[in-house]
Protein backbone atom coordinates (compact mmCIF):
# COMPACT_ATOMS: atom_id res chain seq x y z
CA UNK A 1 0.00 0.00 0.00
CA UNK A 2 1.41 3.33 -1.05
CA UNK A 3 2.63 6.03 1.29
CA UNK A 4 -0.22 8.33 0.27
CA UNK A 5 -2.77 5.65 1.05
CA UNK A 6 -1.23 5.10 4.46
CA UNK A 7 -1.61 8.80 5.19
CA UNK A 8 -5.13 8.96 3.81
CA UNK A 9 -6.16 5.99 5.96
CA UNK A 10 -5.55 8.06 9.08
CA UNK A 11 -8.60 10.20 8.51
CA UNK A 12 -11.75 8.07 8.21
CA UNK A 13 -14.90 10.13 8.63
CA UNK A 14 -17.98 8.53 10.17
CA UNK A 15 -21.58 8.97 9.10
CA UNK A 16 -24.59 7.57 10.90
CA UNK A 17 -27.75 6.29 9.24
CA UNK A 18 -30.73 5.43 11.43
CA UNK A 19 -32.73 2.88 9.45
CA UNK A 20 -35.70 2.77 11.80
CA UNK A 21 -33.74 2.09 14.96
CA UNK A 22 -35.17 2.36 18.47
CA UNK A 23 -32.37 4.90 19.03
CA UNK A 24 -30.56 2.79 21.64
CA UNK A 25 -27.61 2.12 19.35
CA UNK A 26 -27.70 5.73 18.19
CA UNK A 27 -27.31 6.87 21.78
CA UNK A 28 -24.27 4.63 22.07
CA UNK A 29 -22.89 6.05 18.83
CA UNK A 30 -23.35 9.55 20.16
CA UNK A 31 -21.56 8.42 23.31
CA UNK A 32 -18.51 7.27 21.41
CA UNK A 33 -18.32 10.68 19.77
CA UNK A 34 -19.10 13.11 22.52
CA UNK A 35 -17.97 11.57 25.78
CA UNK A 36 -14.32 12.23 26.68
CA UNK A 37 -14.05 8.65 27.89
CA UNK A 38 -14.37 7.06 24.44
CA UNK A 39 -12.75 9.71 22.26
CA UNK A 40 -13.04 8.51 18.68
CA UNK A 41 -10.98 11.47 17.38
CA UNK A 42 -7.80 9.64 18.46
CA UNK A 43 -8.27 7.34 15.50
CA UNK A 44 -8.59 10.38 13.25
CA UNK A 45 -12.34 9.89 12.97
CA UNK A 46 -14.88 12.65 13.12
CA UNK A 47 -18.61 12.58 12.67
CA UNK A 48 -19.54 14.48 9.53
CA UNK A 49 -22.87 16.11 8.84
CA UNK A 50 -23.09 15.32 5.16
CA UNK A 51 -23.21 11.90 3.49
CA UNK A 52 -20.90 13.19 0.79
CA UNK A 53 -18.10 13.53 3.31
CA UNK A 54 -18.45 10.02 4.73
CA UNK A 55 -15.98 7.16 4.60
CA UNK A 56 -17.33 4.74 7.17
CA UNK A 57 -21.09 4.35 7.31
CA UNK A 58 -22.64 3.24 10.61
CA UNK A 59 -26.12 1.81 10.15
CA UNK A 60 -28.49 1.12 13.02
CA UNK A 61 -32.02 -0.16 12.92
CA UNK A 62 -33.82 -3.00 11.15
CA UNK A 63 -34.64 -1.18 7.87
CA UNK A 64 -38.32 -0.56 8.46
CA UNK A 65 -40.60 -0.49 5.43
CA UNK A 66 -41.27 3.19 5.90
CA UNK A 67 -37.68 4.27 5.68
CA UNK A 68 -36.32 1.70 3.25
CA UNK A 69 -36.37 3.75 0.05
CA UNK A 70 -34.85 6.77 1.75
CA UNK A 71 -32.04 4.77 3.30
CA UNK A 72 -31.22 3.11 -0.01
CA UNK A 73 -31.20 6.48 -1.79
CA UNK A 74 -29.03 7.97 0.93
CA UNK A 75 -26.61 5.06 0.67
CA UNK A 76 -26.15 5.76 -3.04
CA UNK A 77 -25.18 9.35 -2.22
CA UNK A 78 -22.13 8.30 -0.26
CA UNK A 79 -19.05 8.29 -2.52
CA UNK A 80 -16.78 5.27 -2.86
CA UNK A 81 -14.60 3.97 -1.31
CA UNK A 82 -16.74 3.35 1.74
CA UNK A 83 -17.08 0.70 4.45
CA UNK A 84 -20.41 -0.23 6.01
CA UNK A 85 -20.72 -1.20 9.66
CA UNK A 86 -23.97 -2.67 11.00
CA UNK A 87 -24.25 -1.55 14.62
CA UNK A 88 -26.51 -3.58 16.88
CA UNK A 89 -28.34 -6.81 16.11
CA UNK A 90 -31.21 -5.11 14.28
CA UNK A 91 -29.43 -4.50 10.97
CA UNK A 92 -27.68 -7.87 11.15
CA UNK A 93 -30.70 -10.10 11.66
CA UNK A 94 -33.71 -7.93 12.42
CA UNK A 95 -33.01 -8.14 16.15
CA UNK A 96 -36.00 -8.38 18.44
CA UNK A 97 -38.23 -7.06 15.63
CA UNK A 98 -37.32 -9.85 13.30
CA UNK A 99 -40.68 -11.28 12.34
CA UNK A 100 -42.53 -7.98 12.22
CA UNK A 101 -44.55 -7.02 9.14
CA UNK A 102 -42.95 -3.58 9.18
CA UNK A 103 -39.36 -4.78 8.98
CA UNK A 104 -37.71 -5.39 5.62
CA UNK A 105 -35.30 -7.92 6.92
CA UNK A 106 -31.55 -7.90 7.49
CA UNK A 107 -29.82 -4.99 5.83
CA UNK A 108 -27.41 -7.13 3.87
CA UNK A 109 -30.27 -8.05 1.57
CA UNK A 110 -29.99 -4.54 0.10
CA UNK A 111 -26.67 -3.07 1.17
CA UNK A 112 -23.22 -4.74 1.19
CA UNK A 113 -22.22 -4.80 4.86
CA UNK A 114 -18.58 -5.22 5.87
CA UNK A 115 -18.45 -5.35 9.67
CA UNK A 116 -21.09 -6.46 12.18
CA UNK A 117 -21.16 -5.34 15.80
CA UNK A 118 -23.74 -7.41 17.70
CA UNK A 119 -25.24 -6.17 20.94
CA UNK A 120 -28.44 -4.57 22.03
CA UNK A 121 -26.99 -2.00 22.19
CA UNK A 122 -23.30 -2.86 21.89
CA UNK A 123 -20.89 -1.30 24.37
CA UNK A 124 -19.15 1.88 23.16
CA UNK A 125 -15.89 -0.07 23.37
CA UNK A 126 -17.37 -2.81 21.17
CA UNK A 127 -18.43 -0.14 18.64
CA UNK A 128 -14.90 1.29 18.74
CA UNK A 129 -13.60 -2.20 18.03
CA UNK A 130 -15.95 -2.50 15.07
CA UNK A 131 -14.82 0.90 13.78
CA UNK A 132 -11.17 -0.14 14.13
CA UNK A 133 -11.88 -3.29 12.07
CA UNK A 134 -13.72 -1.16 9.50
CA UNK A 135 -10.71 1.17 9.21
CA UNK A 136 -8.51 -1.85 8.45
CA UNK A 137 -10.88 -2.89 5.67
CA UNK A 138 -11.09 0.69 4.36
CA UNK A 139 -7.30 0.86 4.07
CA UNK A 140 -7.40 -1.95 1.55
CA UNK A 141 -9.98 -0.13 -0.57
CA UNK A 142 -8.30 3.26 -0.84
Amino acid sequence: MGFMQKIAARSPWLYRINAGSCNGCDVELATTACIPRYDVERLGCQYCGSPRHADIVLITGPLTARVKDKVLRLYEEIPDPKVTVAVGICPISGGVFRESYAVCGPIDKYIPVDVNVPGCPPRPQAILEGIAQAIEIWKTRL
Partner: protein
Amino acid sequence: MLEDLALPLAVLLFPGGLFALAFGLVLKGADRRVAARLQRRVGPPLLQPFFDLVKLAAKRTMVPDIAFRPVFLAAPIIGTVAMMLAAALVPIAGVYTPDPRLGDMLVLLYLLAVPAVAMMVAGSASGSPFGAIGFSREMVLMLAYEGPLLLVVGAVAVKTGSFSLTGIVAYQQAHGANLLDPVLWPALVAFMAFFPANLGVAPFDIPEAETEVLEGPLLEYSGPALGLFKMMSAVKAVVVVGLGIALFLPTGPEGALGLMVHAAKMLVLVLAGMTLLRTSVGRMRIDQAFAFFLKWPLALAAASFAVALAFA
Protein backbone atom coordinates in the same frame (compact mmCIF):
# COMPACT_ATOMS: atom_id res chain seq x y z
CA MET B 1 15.85 38.14 -12.73
CA LEU B 2 15.56 37.29 -9.08
CA GLU B 3 13.44 40.38 -8.50
CA ASP B 4 11.02 39.15 -11.14
CA LEU B 5 10.73 35.86 -9.34
CA ALA B 6 10.28 37.47 -5.93
CA LEU B 7 6.60 38.25 -6.46
CA PRO B 8 5.43 34.83 -7.68
CA LEU B 9 7.58 33.16 -5.05
CA ALA B 10 5.96 35.31 -2.38
CA VAL B 11 2.52 34.25 -3.54
CA LEU B 12 3.30 30.59 -4.09
CA LEU B 13 5.88 29.71 -1.48
CA PHE B 14 6.47 32.17 1.34
CA PRO B 15 4.54 33.74 3.02
CA GLY B 16 1.63 32.89 0.74
CA GLY B 17 0.95 29.56 -0.93
CA LEU B 18 2.64 26.55 0.60
CA PHE B 19 3.90 28.20 3.77
CA ALA B 20 0.52 29.71 4.59
CA LEU B 21 -1.19 26.41 3.85
CA ALA B 22 1.19 24.36 5.97
CA PHE B 23 1.12 26.81 8.83
CA GLY B 24 -2.65 27.15 8.66
CA LEU B 25 -3.06 23.38 8.87
CA VAL B 26 -0.69 23.24 11.84
CA LEU B 27 -2.73 25.97 13.55
CA LYS B 28 -5.91 23.99 12.93
CA GLY B 29 -4.30 20.82 14.25
CA ALA B 30 -3.16 22.64 17.38
CA ASP B 31 -6.64 24.11 17.80
CA ARG B 32 -8.25 20.65 17.63
CA ARG B 33 -5.74 19.10 19.99
CA VAL B 34 -5.98 21.84 22.61
CA ALA B 35 -9.77 21.88 22.33
CA ALA B 36 -9.74 18.15 23.05
CA ARG B 37 -7.49 18.61 26.06
CA LEU B 38 -9.78 21.35 27.35
CA GLN B 39 -12.59 18.82 27.20
CA ARG B 40 -10.52 16.13 28.94
CA ARG B 41 -10.14 14.11 25.76
CA VAL B 42 -6.95 12.97 24.07
CA GLY B 43 -7.64 14.51 20.67
CA PRO B 44 -6.27 13.85 17.18
CA PRO B 45 -2.56 14.04 16.32
CA LEU B 46 -1.24 17.52 15.47
CA LEU B 47 -0.90 16.69 11.79
CA GLN B 48 -4.48 15.44 11.48
CA PRO B 49 -5.59 18.25 9.07
CA PHE B 50 -2.83 17.15 6.68
CA PHE B 51 -4.14 13.59 6.77
CA ASP B 52 -7.66 14.89 6.14
CA LEU B 53 -6.48 16.74 3.03
CA VAL B 54 -4.61 13.73 1.65
CA LYS B 55 -7.68 11.56 2.22
CA LEU B 56 -9.92 14.06 0.46
CA ALA B 57 -7.58 14.11 -2.49
CA ALA B 58 -7.96 10.34 -2.79
CA LYS B 59 -11.75 10.45 -3.11
CA ARG B 60 -13.73 11.67 -6.08
CA THR B 61 -15.78 14.84 -6.40
CA MET B 62 -19.42 14.08 -7.07
CA VAL B 63 -21.34 16.91 -8.73
CA PRO B 64 -25.12 16.81 -8.22
CA ASP B 65 -27.30 16.80 -11.32
CA ILE B 66 -29.13 19.97 -10.35
CA ALA B 67 -25.95 21.85 -9.51
CA PHE B 68 -24.57 24.54 -11.79
CA ARG B 69 -21.36 22.75 -12.62
CA PRO B 70 -18.95 25.55 -13.70
CA VAL B 71 -19.64 27.65 -10.60
CA PHE B 72 -19.80 24.59 -8.35
CA LEU B 73 -16.25 23.61 -9.31
CA ALA B 74 -14.83 27.12 -9.66
CA ALA B 75 -15.93 28.50 -6.28
CA PRO B 76 -13.40 26.62 -4.11
CA ILE B 77 -10.58 27.35 -6.57
CA ILE B 78 -11.30 31.08 -6.56
CA GLY B 79 -11.54 31.15 -2.78
CA THR B 80 -8.24 29.34 -2.27
CA VAL B 81 -6.34 31.41 -4.83
CA ALA B 82 -7.66 34.64 -3.31
CA MET B 83 -6.49 33.58 0.13
CA MET B 84 -3.03 32.64 -1.08
CA LEU B 85 -2.71 36.05 -2.70
CA ALA B 86 -3.93 37.67 0.50
CA ALA B 87 -1.34 35.80 2.54
CA ALA B 88 1.37 37.41 0.43
CA LEU B 89 -0.10 40.82 1.29
CA VAL B 90 0.23 40.58 5.07
CA PRO B 91 3.52 41.96 6.34
CA ILE B 92 5.59 40.15 8.94
CA ALA B 93 7.61 42.76 10.79
CA GLY B 94 11.32 42.38 10.24
CA VAL B 95 10.88 39.34 8.03
CA TYR B 96 8.73 40.16 5.03
CA THR B 97 7.42 43.32 3.45
CA PRO B 98 4.82 42.80 0.76
CA ASP B 99 5.58 43.96 -2.74
CA PRO B 100 3.71 47.24 -3.38
CA ARG B 101 2.72 45.96 -6.83
CA LEU B 102 0.40 43.43 -5.19
CA GLY B 103 -1.72 46.12 -3.63
CA ASP B 104 -2.33 47.08 -0.03
CA MET B 105 -4.96 47.41 2.66
CA LEU B 106 -7.91 47.87 0.32
CA VAL B 107 -6.93 44.88 -1.78
CA LEU B 108 -6.50 42.85 1.40
CA LEU B 109 -9.92 43.81 2.71
CA TYR B 110 -11.45 42.94 -0.63
CA LEU B 111 -9.66 39.61 -0.78
CA LEU B 112 -10.81 38.81 2.76
CA ALA B 113 -14.38 39.02 1.54
CA VAL B 114 -13.81 36.59 -1.33
CA PRO B 115 -13.85 33.32 0.68
CA ALA B 116 -17.18 34.19 2.25
CA VAL B 117 -18.57 35.01 -1.19
CA ALA B 118 -17.11 31.77 -2.58
CA MET B 119 -18.85 29.85 0.18
CA MET B 120 -22.13 31.63 -0.50
CA VAL B 121 -21.93 31.04 -4.22
CA ALA B 122 -21.01 27.41 -3.63
CA GLY B 123 -24.05 26.98 -1.46
CA SER B 124 -26.37 28.39 -4.05
CA ALA B 125 -24.72 26.63 -6.97
CA SER B 126 -25.05 23.24 -5.34
CA GLY B 127 -28.79 23.36 -5.81
CA SER B 128 -29.68 21.89 -2.44
CA PRO B 129 -32.07 23.69 -0.06
CA PHE B 130 -29.56 23.38 2.75
CA GLY B 131 -27.05 25.15 0.58
CA ALA B 132 -29.54 27.93 0.05
CA ILE B 133 -30.03 28.32 3.79
CA GLY B 134 -26.25 28.36 4.28
CA PHE B 135 -25.99 30.99 1.54
CA SER B 136 -28.47 33.33 3.19
CA ARG B 137 -26.95 32.89 6.65
CA GLU B 138 -23.43 33.50 5.37
CA MET B 139 -24.62 36.68 3.69
CA VAL B 140 -26.30 37.98 6.84
CA LEU B 141 -23.26 37.17 8.95
CA MET B 142 -20.93 38.85 6.49
CA LEU B 143 -23.05 41.98 6.50
CA ALA B 144 -22.84 41.92 10.27
CA TYR B 145 -19.10 41.60 10.71
CA GLU B 146 -17.78 43.66 7.79
CA GLY B 147 -18.88 46.89 9.47
CA PRO B 148 -16.84 46.47 12.67
CA LEU B 149 -13.85 45.25 10.64
CA LEU B 150 -13.79 48.37 8.51
CA LEU B 151 -14.14 50.60 11.56
CA VAL B 152 -11.30 48.79 13.35
CA VAL B 153 -9.03 49.16 10.34
CA GLY B 154 -10.10 52.78 10.05
CA ALA B 155 -9.34 53.44 13.72
CA VAL B 156 -5.86 51.96 13.45
CA ALA B 157 -5.24 53.82 10.20
CA VAL B 158 -6.27 57.15 11.71
CA LYS B 159 -4.17 56.55 14.82
CA THR B 160 -1.05 55.56 12.93
CA GLY B 161 -1.62 58.12 10.19
CA SER B 162 -1.19 55.66 7.34
CA PHE B 163 -3.64 53.50 5.42
CA SER B 164 -0.99 51.09 4.18
CA LEU B 165 -0.13 47.96 6.14
CA THR B 166 3.61 48.55 5.80
CA GLY B 167 3.04 52.09 7.10
CA ILE B 168 1.07 50.81 10.10
CA VAL B 169 3.77 48.29 10.93
CA ALA B 170 6.51 50.91 10.52
CA TYR B 171 4.67 53.33 12.83
CA GLN B 172 4.39 50.66 15.51
CA GLN B 173 8.03 49.74 15.18
CA ALA B 174 8.84 53.39 15.87
CA HIS B 175 6.21 54.25 18.52
CA GLY B 176 5.44 50.94 20.23
CA ALA B 177 2.75 48.39 19.53
CA ASN B 178 -0.89 49.47 19.23
CA LEU B 179 -1.70 46.86 21.83
CA LEU B 180 -0.33 49.21 24.49
CA ASP B 181 -2.37 52.17 23.30
CA PRO B 182 -5.58 52.60 25.38
CA VAL B 183 -7.30 54.48 22.56
CA LEU B 184 -7.27 51.35 20.46
CA TRP B 185 -8.37 48.87 23.13
CA PRO B 186 -12.06 49.01 22.12
CA ALA B 187 -10.94 48.36 18.57
CA LEU B 188 -8.99 45.36 19.80
CA VAL B 189 -12.09 43.95 21.51
CA ALA B 190 -14.11 44.51 18.34
CA PHE B 191 -11.45 42.69 16.34
CA MET B 192 -11.55 39.75 18.76
CA ALA B 193 -15.29 39.54 18.12
CA PHE B 194 -14.87 39.73 14.35
CA PHE B 195 -12.16 37.06 14.34
CA PRO B 196 -14.25 33.96 15.22
CA ALA B 197 -17.09 35.10 12.97
CA ASN B 198 -14.84 35.35 9.94
CA LEU B 199 -13.28 31.96 10.60
CA GLY B 200 -16.59 30.21 11.19
CA VAL B 201 -15.94 29.18 14.77
CA ALA B 202 -18.46 28.84 17.62
CA PRO B 203 -20.43 30.87 18.63
CA PHE B 204 -20.58 32.16 15.05
CA ASP B 205 -20.26 28.93 13.05
CA ILE B 206 -23.81 29.48 11.81
CA PRO B 207 -23.55 29.04 8.02
CA GLU B 208 -21.70 25.77 8.34
CA ALA B 209 -23.72 24.45 11.24
CA GLU B 210 -23.35 20.70 11.13
CA THR B 211 -26.42 19.54 12.91
CA GLU B 212 -28.74 22.33 11.81
CA VAL B 213 -28.28 22.68 8.11
CA LEU B 214 -26.16 19.59 7.40
CA GLU B 215 -23.06 21.72 6.78
CA GLY B 216 -24.88 24.29 4.65
CA PRO B 217 -22.91 25.28 1.58
CA LEU B 218 -20.48 22.38 1.93
CA LEU B 219 -23.19 19.74 1.90
CA GLU B 220 -22.78 18.59 -1.69
CA TYR B 221 -19.00 18.83 -1.83
CA SER B 222 -16.74 15.80 -1.65
CA GLY B 223 -13.24 14.80 -2.58
CA PRO B 224 -10.73 17.34 -3.90
CA ALA B 225 -13.29 20.18 -4.12
CA LEU B 226 -14.00 19.82 -0.41
CA GLY B 227 -10.25 19.63 0.16
CA LEU B 228 -9.89 23.00 -1.56
CA PHE B 229 -12.45 24.49 0.79
CA LYS B 230 -10.54 23.13 3.77
CA MET B 231 -7.34 24.65 2.35
CA MET B 232 -9.11 27.95 1.87
CA SER B 233 -10.23 27.91 5.48
CA ALA B 234 -6.71 27.11 6.72
CA VAL B 235 -5.05 29.90 4.71
CA LYS B 236 -7.81 32.31 5.76
CA ALA B 237 -6.91 31.64 9.38
CA VAL B 238 -3.30 32.60 8.67
CA VAL B 239 -4.36 35.76 6.84
CA VAL B 240 -6.81 37.00 9.46
CA VAL B 241 -4.51 36.26 12.38
CA GLY B 242 -1.63 37.84 10.48
CA LEU B 243 -3.76 40.91 9.88
CA GLY B 244 -4.60 41.11 13.55
CA ILE B 245 -0.96 40.89 14.52
CA ALA B 246 0.03 43.49 11.94
CA LEU B 247 -2.62 45.88 13.25
CA PHE B 248 -1.90 45.49 16.94
CA LEU B 249 1.36 43.72 17.81
CA PRO B 250 3.80 43.44 14.92
CA THR B 251 6.92 44.42 16.85
CA GLY B 252 9.54 41.76 17.29
CA PRO B 253 13.07 40.65 16.36
CA GLU B 254 14.30 40.30 12.81
CA GLY B 255 15.10 37.34 10.60
CA ALA B 256 14.50 33.72 11.52
CA LEU B 257 13.92 34.50 15.19
CA GLY B 258 11.35 37.05 14.14
CA LEU B 259 9.54 34.41 12.11
CA MET B 260 9.43 32.10 15.09
CA VAL B 261 8.15 34.88 17.34
CA HIS B 262 5.49 35.68 14.73
CA ALA B 263 4.45 32.03 14.61
CA ALA B 264 4.26 31.92 18.40
CA LYS B 265 2.09 35.06 18.42
CA MET B 266 -0.24 33.47 15.88
CA LEU B 267 -0.51 30.31 17.95
CA VAL B 268 -1.32 32.26 21.11
CA LEU B 269 -3.93 34.34 19.30
CA VAL B 270 -5.58 31.25 17.83
CA LEU B 271 -5.59 29.35 21.11
CA ALA B 272 -6.85 32.26 23.18
CA GLY B 273 -9.25 33.82 20.71
CA MET B 274 -10.58 30.74 18.96
CA THR B 275 -10.03 27.51 20.89
CA LEU B 276 -10.92 28.81 24.33
CA LEU B 277 -14.00 30.48 22.89
CA ARG B 278 -15.30 27.56 20.87
CA THR B 279 -14.97 25.06 23.69
CA SER B 280 -16.84 27.19 26.16
CA VAL B 281 -19.86 28.48 24.26
CA GLY B 282 -22.59 27.08 22.09
CA ARG B 283 -23.79 28.39 18.78
CA MET B 284 -25.78 31.60 18.39
CA ARG B 285 -28.80 31.94 16.15
CA ILE B 286 -28.31 34.04 13.05
CA ASP B 287 -30.62 36.82 14.26
CA GLN B 288 -28.83 36.89 17.61
CA ALA B 289 -25.44 37.09 15.91
CA PHE B 290 -26.63 39.86 13.58
CA ALA B 291 -28.01 41.90 16.47
CA PHE B 292 -24.86 41.29 18.51
CA PHE B 293 -22.54 42.58 15.80
CA LEU B 294 -24.64 45.64 15.20
CA LYS B 295 -24.45 46.49 18.89
CA TRP B 296 -21.21 45.94 20.79
CA PRO B 297 -18.44 45.41 18.22
CA LEU B 298 -19.78 48.21 16.07
CA ALA B 299 -20.09 50.57 19.03
CA LEU B 300 -16.62 49.73 20.35
CA ALA B 301 -14.97 50.09 16.96
CA ALA B 302 -16.81 53.36 16.32
CA ALA B 303 -15.73 54.64 19.73
CA SER B 304 -12.11 53.86 18.96
CA PHE B 305 -12.44 55.50 15.56
CA ALA B 306 -14.01 58.64 17.00
CA VAL B 307 -11.43 59.02 19.77
CA ALA B 308 -8.57 58.41 17.37
CA LEU B 309 -10.04 61.03 15.00
CA ALA B 310 -10.45 63.50 17.87
CA PHE B 311 -6.88 63.19 19.01
CA ALA B 312 -5.37 62.96 15.51
